[in-house]
């Protein structure tokens, strides 16, 4: 029999490598290991390594004026750990009402390794586009929260029109990328904590970077 620690480390790895998909909640026995992982040094180290890879890739490129990096928002640039630590680190089913209340406070801190990388990419001359599944009614609070957390500039902030009919995040993000390509942007990199940020169509010639997220899965 595997200990919870070992078994849940395997769960987490399998989520990151996209072997485990579409889970609605994390396993009960993984709450403690997830908490230890998130609050220990490994989560930040994992985030650092991925952001570094993105920077290494970016730093070797010749930058054109329409070159962009696309970032997700929640748990990519802004941390929602303050929310999830009050909700069992993903063991509770997602509650949109409670989550929206939390988002509307506009108090989410930056994920520090992503913020560092964001600043470096800006210095290299890349444009930043934030592409989020947050709805349009969160525009003002999202702008304010990004600035408060240290993300001071961006080319576009794309939130979701609630009237737009897309079956899932994957197709929504593909459609938004198609718009960006049509507007003449060249997508150089995509950084997100969900596979639905990184798979799908209209990724241009980009490389994608999967940040760690052991707490939830967005289809």
């Amino acid at each position, binding site marked *: 029999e*595997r200990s919870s620690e*070992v*078994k849940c*480390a*395997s*769960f987490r*790895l*399998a989520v*990151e*490598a*996209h*072997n*485990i998909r579409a889970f609605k909640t994390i396993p009960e026995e993984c709450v403690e290991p997830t908490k230890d992982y998130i609050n220990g*040094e*490994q989560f930040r*180290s*994992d985030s*650092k*390594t*991925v952001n570094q*890879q993105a920077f290494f890739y970016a730093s070797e490129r010749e930058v054109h004026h329409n070159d962009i990096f696309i970032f997700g928002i929640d748990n990519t640039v802004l941390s929602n750990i303050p929310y999830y630590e009050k909700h069992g680190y993903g063991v509770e089913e997602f509650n949109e009402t409670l989550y929206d209340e939390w988002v509307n406070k506009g108090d989410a801190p930056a994920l520090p390794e992503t913020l560092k990388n964001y600043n470096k990419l800006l210095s290299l001359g890349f444009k930043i586009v934030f592409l989020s599944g947050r709805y349009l009614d969160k525009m003002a609070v999202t702008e304010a929260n990004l600035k408060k957390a240290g993300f001071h500039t961006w080319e576009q902030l794309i939130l979701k029109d609630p009237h737009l009919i897309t079956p899932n995040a994957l197709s929504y993000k593909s459609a938004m990328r198609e718009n960006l390509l049509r507007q003449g942007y060249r997508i150089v990199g995509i950084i997100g904590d969900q596979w639905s940020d990184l798979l799908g169509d209209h990724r241009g010639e980009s490389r994608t*970077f*999967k940040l*760690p997220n052991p707490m939830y899965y967005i289809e």
Partner: protein
Amino acid sequence: ARTPEVKCASWRLAVEAHNIFGFETIPEECVEATKEYIHGEQYRSDSKTVNQQAYFYARDLEVHPKDTFVFSIDGTVLSNIPYYKKHGYGVEKFNSTLYDEWVNKGNAPALPETLKNYNKLVSLGFKIIFLSGRTLDKQAVTEANLKKAGYHTWEKLILKDPQDPSTPNAVSYKTAAREKLIRQGYNIVGIIGDQWSDLLGGHRGESRTFKLPNPLYYIQ
């Protein structure tokens, strides 16, 4: 600064999630951490979880006669850890002469969690196809090694023709081989491999793919 233990765990995770790719050797400072991972219980547990996911997926499917799981061989069904532990767990550059010598011994053990899953998939009625980057001159030794390790049956064992120029790398070789399988009427239901080059590329049919852990090397 991060300890090698923490840093190398991040490195390993980034390899598995395909954030780090095209590496020729593992970082010097990760030799010890890799050794401990491979010989500790985590590696086997990680292999178990991935194989279980493949089985959970498979048992919910209705099985048709041409439904196939494609497995790679080295690092997927046969372990090459006995080789890599003598060669720094991936810190040395790949030496095809020495590796071929080792392969030709035909003594590679099964990866135990893959063997279990293989037996379950065979019981469910799926056909098994082994698709490997080993070259055709290894046919006899590969067949013997698979049987010795406990893999007694397969639909096809596909090795690489070294004369075939249409395959500049493993992704295109495996893609071309899958295209042929689909043309022969096989329905590829799942692909199980330890390299992203086993799992990416075209002609994957309607399959789901399963990435087994391998922190030792990367095949383009």
